[in-house]
């Protein structure tokens, strides 16, 4: 995937380029410190993905998007923690990253970018109820028994050292695994890591306060870095 980075801050460009370098599928063609130079480049070259800073002097990230007839996939980068809503008025915007960008958050963004490609490619060829079935289930290993869990019944997952505590609507399970491993198995649109020790099923949220969520009687802390993503997922009035 050929990509470019547009950001007026060299530190930010350097960090994004470094993050991209960990992925074979990402090929950073070049980076730009201003939108106008990038537009000239985009008029002559085909690019798959742009990491685009919103807040640039003179010409913002949104101004740049408006100038492109067929914009490629775009990941916005911003220092605005509260930023979220405007971005999703554009189909080309696949995600936004709040600076400073962590490796973990960057990986999730790539999942989202790849997922949109993947789902578009497969929409025509897969009708598969089998796959849907698999997507809805998770088998966990407890005392050498594989127990089937309905993914939608999972309320939250808590990290407990080398184990995770899986709280479901019917029962709780302690499994020898990590939060990272189970997160990879769960649908990204439903589950969100809100804290280094907690994954939650966002559809089960009862209410949210400043730095915590109430979910099925459990008050779960929300770390500052994960709050913007949580807020982004809400259907806010």
């Amino acid at each position, binding site marked *: 995937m050929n990509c470019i980075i547009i950001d*007026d*801050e*060299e*530190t*930010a460009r*350097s*960090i994004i380029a*470094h*993050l991209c370098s960990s992925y074979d599928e990402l090929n950073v063609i070049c980076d730009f410190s201003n939108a106008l130079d990038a537009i000239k480049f985009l008029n002559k070259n085909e690019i798959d993905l742009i990491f685009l800073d919103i*807040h640039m*002097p003179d010409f913002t990230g949104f101004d740049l998007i408006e100038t492109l007839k067929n914009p490629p996939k775009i990941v916005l980068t911003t*220092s*605005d*923690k*509260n930023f979220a809503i405007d971005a999703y008025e554009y189909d080309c915007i696949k995600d936004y990253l709040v*600076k*400073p960008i*962590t*490796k973990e958050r960057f990986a999730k963004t790539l999942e989202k970018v790849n997922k949109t490609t993947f789902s578009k490619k497969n929409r025509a060829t897969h009708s598969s109820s089998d796959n849907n079935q698999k997507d809805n289930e998770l088998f966990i290993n407890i005392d050498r028994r594989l127990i089937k869990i309905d993914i939608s019944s999972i309320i939250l997952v808590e990290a407990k050292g080398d184990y995770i505590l899986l709280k479901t609507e019917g029962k709780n399970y302690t499994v020898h695994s990590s939060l990272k491993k189970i997160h990879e198995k769960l649908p990204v649109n439903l589950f969100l890591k809100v804290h280094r020790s907690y994954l939650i099923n966002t559809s089960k949220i009862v209410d949210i306060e400043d730095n915590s969520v109430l979910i099925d009687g459990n008050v779960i802390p929300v770390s*500052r870095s994960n709050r913007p993503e949580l807020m982004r997922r809400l259907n806010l009035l």
Partner: protein
Amino acid sequence: MEKCNTNYIDALSDGNKVFRAKLIATLKEEFPNEFVIYFDNVDKDLKKTAESVHKLKHKIGILGLEKSYDLAIIYEENLRKHSLEGKESFELILDNMYHFINKL
């Protein structure tokens, strides 16, 4: 006063000494300019000052100053509302960063 740290830089570098050195060099080069631009604008042009604060927020985050980052958000919002409330605290943050970056 919150202390600057290199936790984010270290986590990002993940043992890559070349990248770590390059990132620190970039910070050392870019921060003093942003510092000067901020002080050139403050008290003269609140919109430009807000832009400076916005840009500096990233580096505040990079140096692990979580509370300071929140103060910078509030100060930036105040500047956009034509208020200098939070100026003193923000400038202490800049001093803090300036000394830390100089020692890196």
